[in-house]
């Protein structure tokens, strides 16, 4: 990562105003959003939107043709172009033809995307943004940090400073007063403007209508007072039918600002009469700027389902820490990373794509059903294809693809790490998955890996067998978790098989964009794990489970390596996570815990992959309760712990505050123990509590359960 980029992150996370405002907003947003959706079947609603928008993305040209025909029939002028420069030229020409000196604008990300304001200003036209947030950043000479709330990064003190300069009067920080100043300053501009420029939230092909969704009332003035109205709309806003406006209006305000509906919605179909009786000149520009190319790319077509609500930013654990400006472009956050990679260029996303920790929070709330983490993974893959891997990565992954060498190094690390050991943790261990950077408490490599310990375990002979896939962390750092799993399954009458040739699941390579490496890991594991004729392959690491269930097949498919696909699918059907299997065994009555035991309060941390990719959250809680624990929920129990594989080592400045927040939430429950199903989370959170010194026990669910088995 570039130095300036790292510096901008450090500045952002240390900006107390920014992280305070964003953190508070993000916490409140989640609660308010849920409330706004009360009584609405969100899954059905977003499926509808995804269907409507995806079908539109399949036929952008056809819908644009229909829109043009229908809007023109109503008297609008429709201009279509792929080129942002042509958009600017067109608007300037209309302005020149009509002697336009002043423009008022309502909020439009598309005009920000093509940097329209400076272009018009350069050509002698005065432009006033009228959305309060946009006006603030215009006065500050900045770009929006959030697509819905452009000035969310600014304090009232900063706004008062800006406005004071503008009106040449010392203003206090009273927000109501500042808003009044904006009203009074902008009102004459509305009344005097020769031209109004707006964006558009929806464009309806069959009626030639544009829909504007706003709160302040400025769009109504921009589209009413000046005699010329230009609407600039990205072609991804097209929908075929008028009725499709409904689901988008149901979702957009709820997802954007947790409102049932914004204060104003305007559906404009053709020009209306001005107040002097003349007919308004209405120009609608449908802008492509690579959207059609995106629509034809199977991996990125889904990005056109975005309705620009910004909810992905509002729930993002990274965005709430760093804000929007770190992203460097006009569009910010996860969706911004994707749009920047396309509307600017792939290279521009090189640094910012690394900000995504792949926690999947955004996928849960996106009303367009976008899988942003998946698209960011694809960006990583393409960047690696374009730029190649770094030497360090190449070396690491070269090792990871050679199991014997890899495991040999891990064994050696267990010895090499020794001198630095303090308790269970050591500092500055060259952890095998990391970019060899330093920074935090990491676990010692176990003196004896699980693969060796396993050979010494005396198991009962059982009819039923399962294959255990340990993954690197359990195998080499936390073998006790594997031992606990064997104990539990043996108790249920299941013998555990551990194929010694199993190797890394490929997640570290995959999440770094090194798909070829991950594919090799996938094939090596598929061969080994399918050798035994068993019903289940169980893993006690959710990231590994996701690899077995989803990523092996997806990776091979992406690379076009079809020959192993059927086997990958076979493995996918057999693979499952630890808690799901144990819950099933408990329900079947095959596994029971000591009776009448009260173990007191415990809190449970949901790991990202388990909760959001595997949809498992109730199972571990239920079995912990069965074992005698009383689960006391922490605030934001399913918020990422900041580990994210090697993320915590690449971006410790972000990972650390996320972890601190998690530790705080755990401590607030007063529970002496926190349980989780992921060895990666254990590593992060245990490492945090090791330094924090508050003595909270951090345990894998398997370990806690194994202690409570009936004798």
């Amino acid at each position, binding site marked *: 990562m570039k130095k300036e980029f790292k510096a901008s992150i450090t500045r952002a996370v240390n900006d107390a105003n920014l992280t305070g*405002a964003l953190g*508070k907003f993000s916490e409140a947003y989640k609660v308010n959003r849920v409330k706004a959706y009360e009584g609405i079947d969100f899954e059905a609603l977003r499926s509808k939107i995804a269907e409507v928008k995806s079908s539109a993305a399949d036929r952008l040209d056809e819908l644009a043709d229909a829109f043009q025909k229908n809007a023109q029939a*109503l008297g609008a002028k429709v201009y279509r172009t792929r080129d942002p420069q042509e958009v600017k030229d067109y608007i300037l020409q209309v302005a020149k033809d009509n002697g336009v000196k002043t423009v008022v604008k309502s909020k439009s990300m598309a005009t920000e995307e093509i940097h329209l304001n400076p272009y018009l200003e350069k050509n002698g036209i005065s432009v006033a943004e*009228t*959305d*309060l*947030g946009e006006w*603030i950043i215009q006065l500050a000479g900045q770009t929006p940090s959030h697509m819905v*709330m*452009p*000035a*969310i990064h*600014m304090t*009232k003190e900063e*706004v008062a400073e800006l406005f004071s300069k503008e009106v040449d009067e010392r203003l206090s920080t009273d*927000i*109501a007063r*500042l*808003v*009044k100043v*904006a*009203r009074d300053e902008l*009102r004459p501009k*509305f*009344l005097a403007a020769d031209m109004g420029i707006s964006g558009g939230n929806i464009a*309806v092909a069959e*009626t*030639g*209508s544009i829909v504007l969704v706003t*709160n*302040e*009332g*400025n769009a*109504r*003035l921009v*589209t*009413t*007072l000046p005699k010329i109205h230009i609407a600039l709309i990205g072609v991804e806003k097209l929908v075929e039918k*008028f009725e499709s*406006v*409904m689901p988008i*209006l*149901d979702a957009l305000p709820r997802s954007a*600002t947790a*409102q*049932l*509906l*914004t*204060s*104003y*919605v*305007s*559906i*404009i*179909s*053709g020009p*209306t*009469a*001005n*107040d002097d009786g003349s007919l308004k000149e209405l120009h609608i520009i449908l802008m492509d700027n690579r959207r059609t190319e995106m629509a034809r790319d199977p991996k990125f077509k889904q990005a056109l389902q975005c309705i620009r609500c910004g909810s992905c930013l509002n729930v993002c654990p990274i965005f709430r820490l760093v804000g929007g400006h770190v992203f460097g472009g006009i569009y910010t956050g996860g969706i911004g990373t994707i749009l920047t990679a396309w509307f600017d260029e792939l290279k521009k996303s090189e640094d910012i794509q690394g900000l995504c920790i792949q926690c999947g929070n955004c996928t849960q709330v996106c009303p367009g059903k976008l899988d942003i983490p998946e698209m960011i993974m694809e960006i990583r893959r393409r960047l690696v294809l374009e730029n190649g891997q770094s030497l360090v990565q190449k070396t690491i992954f070269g090792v990871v693809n050679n199991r014997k060498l890899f495991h040999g190094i891990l064994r050696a690390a267990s010895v090499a790490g020794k001198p630095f050991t303090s308790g269970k943790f050591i500092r500055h261990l060259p952890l095998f998955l990391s970019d060899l950077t330093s920074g935090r408490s990491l676990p010692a490599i176990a003196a004896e890996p699980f693969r060796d310990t396993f050979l010494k375990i005396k198991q009962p002979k059982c009819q039923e067998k399962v294959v255990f896939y340990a993954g690197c962390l359990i195998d080499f750092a936390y073998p006790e978790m594997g031992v606990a799993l064997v104990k539990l399954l043996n108790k249920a009458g299941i013998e555990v098989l551990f194929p010694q040739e199993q190797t890394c699941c490929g997640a570290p390579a995959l999440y770094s964009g090194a798909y070829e490496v991950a594919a090799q890991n996938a094939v090596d594991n598929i061969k080994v794990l399918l050798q035994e004729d068993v019903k289940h392959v169980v893993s006690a690491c959710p990231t590994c489970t996701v690899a077995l269930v989803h990523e092996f097949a997806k990776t091979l498919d992406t690379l076009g390596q079809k020959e192993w696909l059927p086997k990958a699918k076979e493995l996918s059907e057999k693979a499952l996570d630890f808690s799901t299997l144990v819950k099933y065994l408990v329900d079947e009555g095959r596994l029971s815990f000591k009776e009448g035991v009260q173990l007191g309060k415990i809190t449970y941390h949901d790991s990202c992959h388990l909760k959001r990719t595997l949809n498992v959250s109730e199972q571990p809680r239920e079995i912990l309760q069965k074992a005698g624990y009383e689960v006391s929920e922490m605030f934001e129990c399913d918020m990422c712990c900041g580990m994210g594989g090697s993320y915590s080592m690449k971006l410790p400045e972000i990972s650390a505050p996320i972890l601190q927040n998690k530790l705080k939430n755990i401590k607030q429950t007063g529970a002496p123990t926190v349980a989780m199903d992921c060895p990666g989370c254990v590593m992060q959170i245990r490492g945090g509590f090791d330094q924090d010194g508050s003595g909270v026990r951090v345990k894998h669910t398997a370990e806690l359960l194994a202690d409570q088995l009936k004798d």
Partner: protein
Amino acid sequence: MYEQFKAKAAGVGAEVYRFEKKRDALDFLLPFLEKEGMADAAGSYALWADSPFLDGMDKKALQELPGLKFEVTRSLASQAKFGISQLDWALADTGSLVQDQSAVEQRLVSSLTSIHIALIASGNILSGKAPLFERINPQTSRYIAFITGPSRTADIERVLTIGVHGPERLVIIFVDELGGENP
């Protein structure tokens, strides 16, 4: 549905009233305007846009009231304190009002003024967008406006502030006598 509408609209800061007769509505409205300071001076007068409510009313008598005007122009609207208009539909599930505002006067009185008074037939409350979309037609209505509460912003520190560019107050008056679809 009226109660649901009222709760939702009040939830976003609108003031909601209901009267049986037009006369009752007027008996509320005129003292309200007076109390809020309606006068002939710029910044204090009221503009009443063309409304079915006025059919059969003695407009001349109303015009006698200081500060109440029935002529709507851009320059008058820019100095008006009150805007009065009649909306077409009310949506119970979101507390929204909907009107075909193709006529610019309807937009001027509801967007440039500080207090927008919205009259509406009690019989035109719909459950939500689905029945509304069966009743609106963009081919014949060029500017369909939804209004939900007063103008608002939260662009400074996410603090909700009312009345940034549009009206600071939205006063909704249902009148049973105006009929509507389900009188």
